[in-house]
């Protein structure tokens, strides 16, 4: 009797925090996706990953702290990936098709990069440049072995430039359609450069079949206002690792949107760094994992300067056997980043049995002199009781399921504010729902 009462009390407490019924707060749980194997597995490898750290941190900073994460342009600086690292523990390495083993046992990354088709307003320039172009590397530095491999192996880069004080509206969208060239492991490099006070929207639309490791540099100069939408709507067999490095200038605003829909394994790792005060970053993500798909989103916001703001909202739906979504939200507020205002949120909606969502928000705060810092994560199931409730009001089963999923994902779609894209994404959600035999 007493036990029952206590259980009730706990339940009420959760409710009063405003969680959604059927939603549980996801804690960190160890994954068995990459079981420990051989002498390089486990803690030995973990400790090793700090060797040669070139970006501060070092001894004494745990593997899980983003302050201590190794960054380098050189593949050789990164040890082989074992799958037990904090950064890789959720990724099924066997399905990376060699992207993780470039430089090991003759694994190459020499396939053709995706073909680039461009539609753009006149004032925006899109160039293809060699890897020695001076602008490359201005916004980013690889943070993992796969990104470093791509950096060493790309032959040509595509650079999109929004000129100084360029004023594009939500209709003047620059779109790069990147069509995969096949399943030979390939590297690609994209740079989106918004010069001072430029305003505009750039869409990266990934399609076709590819095994691709990609670096996207997003360089946002002072006072610019840039929206970048990266859509991954590949064929079912595609594997894509995309490291998206955002450099936010003084008083600049960046809206970064990740849409992960199609592909066998997608691993998207956006990171934002502020180079001046007053910067604002909004990061949105929308993903829909079907049977057998692994969609992984790992983001990092590095608050290293004063008075900057960040908002992160990622929402995903999952359906089907083996559908797996991973969301890791790392936010670091460094000692000098006084006046920081940050909030990150992830919500997952599991529609069927057999799907799994891992959601881990990590907030590290090194100063108390901040405006605000918070995070939320919840994973819920669309369950039989919800279905019964809607059906008991006359709504047919398939309509009921769509109603819930549409409503859930719409919260992200309506923030994109690019009408043509919103429509396409709503259609894509409908397609996913139809494909899931709902």
């Amino acid at each position: 009797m007493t036990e029952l009462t206590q259980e009730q009390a706990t339940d009420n407490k959760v409710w009063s925090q405003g969680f959604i019924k059927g939603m549980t707060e996801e804690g960190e749980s160890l994954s068995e996706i990459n079981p420990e194997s051989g002498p390089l597995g486990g803690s030995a490898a973990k400790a090793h990953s700090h060797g040669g750290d070139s970006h501060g941190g070092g001894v004494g900073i745990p593997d899980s702290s983003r302050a201590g994460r190794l960054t380098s342009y050189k593949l050789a600086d990164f040890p082989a990936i074992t799958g037990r690292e904090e950064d890789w523990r959720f990724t099924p390495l066997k399905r990376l098709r060699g992207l993780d083993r470039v430089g090991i046992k003759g694994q190459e990354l020499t396939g053709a990069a995706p073909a680039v088709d461009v539609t753009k307003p006149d004032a925006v320039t899109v160039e293809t440049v060699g890897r020695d172009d001076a602008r490359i590397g201005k916004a980013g530095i690889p943070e993992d072995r796969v990104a470093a491999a791509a950096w060493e192996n790309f032959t040509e880069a595509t650079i999109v430039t929004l000129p100084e004080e360029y004023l594009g509206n939500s209709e003047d969208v620059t779109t790069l359609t990147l069509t995969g060239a096949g399943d030979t492991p390939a590297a690609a490099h994209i740079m989106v450069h918004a010069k001072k006070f430029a305003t505009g929207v750039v869409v990266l639309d990934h399609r076709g079949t590819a095994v691709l490791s990609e670096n996207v540099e997003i360089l946002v100069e002072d006072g610019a206002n840039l929206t970048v939408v990266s859509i991954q709507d590949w064929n079912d067999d595609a594997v894509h690792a995309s490291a998206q490095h955002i450099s936010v200038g003084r008083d600049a605003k960046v809206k970064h949107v990740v849409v992960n829909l199609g592909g066998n394994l997608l691993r998207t790792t956006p990171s934002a760094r502020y180079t001046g005060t007053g910067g604002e970053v909004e990061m949105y993500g929308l993903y829909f994992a079907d049977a057998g798909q692994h969609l992984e989103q790992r983001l990092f916001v590095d608050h290293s300067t004063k008075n900057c703001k960040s908002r992160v909202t990622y929402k995903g739906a999952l359906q089907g056997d083996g559908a797996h979504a991973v969301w890791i939200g790392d936010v670091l507020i460094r000692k000098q980043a006084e006046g920081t205002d940050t909030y990150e949120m992830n919500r997952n909606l599991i529609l069927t049995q057999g799907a799994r969502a891992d959601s881990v928000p990590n907030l590290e705060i090194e100063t108390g002199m901040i405006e605000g810092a918070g995070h939320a994560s919840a994973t819920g199931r669309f369950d039989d009781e919800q279905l019964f409730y809607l059906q008991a009001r006359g709504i047919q089963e398939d309509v009921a399921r769509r109603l819930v999923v549409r409503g859930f994902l719409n919260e992200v779609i309506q923030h994109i504010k690019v009408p043509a894209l919103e429509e396409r994404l709503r259609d894509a959600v409908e397609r996913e729902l139809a494909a899931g035999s709902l």
Partner: protein
Amino acid sequence: MSTLEIKDLHVSIVTEQGVKAILKGVSLTINTGETHAIMGPNGSGKSTLASTIAGHPRYTVDSGSITLDGEDVLAMSVDQRARAGLFLAMQYPVEIPGVTMTNFLRTAKTAIDGEAPKLRTWTKDVKAAMAQLRIEPEFAERNVNEGFSGGEKKRHEILQLELLNPKFAILDETDSGLDVDALKVVSEGVNRTIAAGGLGTMLITHYTRILRYIKPDFVHVFVDGNIAEQGGPELADRLEAEGYDRYLDEETATA
């Protein structure tokens, strides 16, 4: 006039201990315009009857029939039953993330009527119905039942009753957990729907309190999966004075 007829209904559920019979031959006929109170102690099968009529998948009908104007209700899916004119006000309404009340109500109304309601009159109707049930306008933009208090959830059940305008309403312990003020507001809502004409009401309750506000034409006492006694409103008065002990003693005596 419509008739909801339940004949010799046997219902069981599957539990960890095996199959358990809950309803053991319930027969009950309700016509539109009538209000029937179903009363009884906990575990007597009242809520099972409600859920079975609505078609909850947890309950298995072993034998017997439920018909609505001669149509076989048991052959209909949950949503077909609702569209045929049955409405269940739930004892524990669930929260539905991602769906606003506005969107939900419009979708339900469209499903029930077979066509989308006229936007202008619909918006007006919803606002008026919400105001009468003392629901703050902001609830229209909130997700269905999400973060609602117990009383707020029950008011929203009655809001749906008023807007969807069914032939038969089954109110499953709508009075449970309500304070007197909320009980009055909810009862007024039910009475409005009854007065608007043609509603058959099955009022399932553990307490006699709600019967002061909603007057039943018939009272049925449920004990151990069957109707132990039936009568007029005077039976409710007797239950208020004596409680259910009389029936439970009888049961123990016969067992």
